[in-house]
């Protein structure tokens, strides 16, 4: 019989994010939150309309009730203006958490992220800091088609000045979001929408997972699988099935995509000599090719087999469920890739 410890109570990924926001807002009144419908019904003073949505998938629900509409602020559909407002507020003493509903909407506001938030500190000779968090949703599998399902976090990783994180489970979601909010640099916080309902043990109270540190949720010495966000779960499924045929898989969950925990990745590659990278983002100029490049430049002599990538194809995300399921990397594809490195 198992007893659930209080410190290990189980909540969902969605709840973990909500909790981190709640705690950080309570801790620091410079933290404010804004985005489209993050509370809901901003036009109405009626109680029955209050907090009508809490974001399109309910992640920020309840925060306006706890912290007031003065700190949980709905916006018009005007991403350039309000994400830029996040930058301007961050540069002048606030610590805003703004929501870019889906990461695929980056194109309507990218300038404020890559040319303002990311470059200001450098262009100003270090005389500015931008403690801004941009929360956004990634991930295919929601039947939401090409513009609402892709995961181009690689674009953010490309631009110096940004940090990028992508938690794979509720505890990391809570801890990394707290770290992102406390960080003095702009952080893109990528929530995988397919994980929102996933439960997991999450420490209560303040909990911080440092940026830039990968985790190794499964140790093994035959092969290293480096995975991101929802693909960590896919890696576990693959590892389970490989275990039954005696293959010991080590899984590295990157967690932070920028900065990368190169030490953990390289140590694992040096240990296992075999590398498979699993990423649901498109393959060109991606975090997946970065990991392969890391191996090729810094661990080649340890590699016993060619590196294997398992990613989405170089296509937009299709709508049809059968196609979308074929788009996202599967445990079967990962198993095959691992087997190829062992051949």
């Amino acid at each position, binding site marked *: 019989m198992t007893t659930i410890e209080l410190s290990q109570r189980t909540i969902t990924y969605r709840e973990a994010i909500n909790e981190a926001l709640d705690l950080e807002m309570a801790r620091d009144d410079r933290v404010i939150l804004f985005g489209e419908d993050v509370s809901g*019904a901003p036009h109405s003073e009626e109680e029955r309309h209050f907090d009508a949505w809490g974001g399109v998938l309910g992640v920020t629900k309840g925060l306006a009730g706890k912290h007031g509409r003065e700190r949980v602020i*709905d916006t018009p*559909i*005007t991403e350039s203006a309000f994400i830029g407002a996040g930058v301007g507020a961050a540069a002048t003493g606030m610590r805003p958490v703004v929501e870019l509903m889906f990461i695929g909407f980056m194109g309507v506001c990218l300038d404020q992220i890559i040319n303002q938030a990311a470059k200001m500190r450098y262009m100003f000779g270090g005389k500015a800091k931008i403690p801004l968090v941009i929360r956004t949703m990634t991930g295919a599998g929601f*039947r939401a088609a090409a*513009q609402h399902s892709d995961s181009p976090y690689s674009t953010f990783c490309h631009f110096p000045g940004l940090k990028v994180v992508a938690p794979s489970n509720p505890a990391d979601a809570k801890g990394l979001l707290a770290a992102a909010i406390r960080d003095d640099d702009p952080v893109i916080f990528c929530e995988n929408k397919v994980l929102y309902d996933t439960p997991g043990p999450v420490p209560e109270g303040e909990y911080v997972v440092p940026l830039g540190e990968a985790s190794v949720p499964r140790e093994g010495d035959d092969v290293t699988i480096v995975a991101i966000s929802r693909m960590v779960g896919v890696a576990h499924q693959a590892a389970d099935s490989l275990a039954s045929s005696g293959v010991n898989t080590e899984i590295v969950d990157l967690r932070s995509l920028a900065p990368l925990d190169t030490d953990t990745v390289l140590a694992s590659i040096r240990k296992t000599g075999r590398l498979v990278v699993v990423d649901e983002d498109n393959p060109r100029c991606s975090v997946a090719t970065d990991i392969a490049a890391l191996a090729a430049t810094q661990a080649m002599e340890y590699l016993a087999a060619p590196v294997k990538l398992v990613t989405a194809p170089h296509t937009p995300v*299709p709508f049809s469920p059968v196609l979308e399921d074929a788009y996202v990397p599967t445990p079967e594809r990962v198993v095959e890739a691992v087997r190829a490195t062992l051949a």
Partner: protein
Amino acid sequence: MDMDRNSLVEAYRRMRTIREFEDRLHKDFAGGEIPGFVHLYAGEEAVAVGLCSHLGDGDFITSTHRGHGHCIAKGVDTAGMMAEIYGKAPGSCNGKGGSMHIADVDKGMLGANGIVGGGPPLACGAALSAKKRGTDNVVICFFGDGASNQGTTLEGMNLAGVWKLPVVFVCENNGYAETTSYKYSVSGTDIAARARGFGMPSVAVDGLDFFAVAEAAGEAIARARRGEGPTFIEAQTYRYYGHFEGDSIAYRDREEEESFRSRDCLSRFRQTVTSQGLVEAADLDAIDGAVAAEIEQAVTDALSAPDPSLDSLTTDVYVDFPASQLWMFQDEPVRV
């Protein structure tokens, strides 16, 4: 209105088709049959049809995430649309686009669009093209009250003015963007006035009144065809369902919905044309029946239609591209 009987019948048929299509989706979504985000147009039919009844296949429209009504109004085949919404191979986009991306370029329908404000720049381009190709074709650019705040929409209005493009900007003010009233999101709250700041004629019309919409549309389109540039129409309307299916609609009141439903565009149209003896009620009833059968058939066909082949995952990305690079850096998965 100078519409002949045939045009009136056709307009009714299209409005009725939209309503039937959307009501059916509402029902089937609740039944768990339909994947993804589905945004219904029910309630707003008079806008799409009032505009599109003036158009031919050479004219273009751009649309939004709430695109079914625009598609039907522009003559896109409902069977293909329904199959698309179910993600099936015979869908308008072979199942690759879904509800938010239904398109039919040959019919002049440049796609529903998942990006709020995605359409206006495209509309400028189609209008520029119409002009450069020496046609008198026009482009109708549909967007919402929420979209009227998006930079791309505002830029599009300015560019259309500068280039004197044959575009009619149609803001479907259905009161809300998701949960947010335009009274909050639109600074100044007067959307039509905003367009005047871009130097274009601008008018607000009752979007529940087909004849009011069609009249404003007729003038704007004629102006565009004459090469006199863009016009803005704010059509005040309402969506009967939630923002998308599954929305609990906690941000507005039932009474508000009722007050709009009591002015329903279809009932009013029927009332007007029958009371004026323009079309017989029996003829409209016949349309209702035919449309219901058409949509029923579309659902039946969609349900039994085949899924897209897995090979189609990597087709249609480019006109011309090395196949091997569609699975770049990796082995193409073996399908079993």
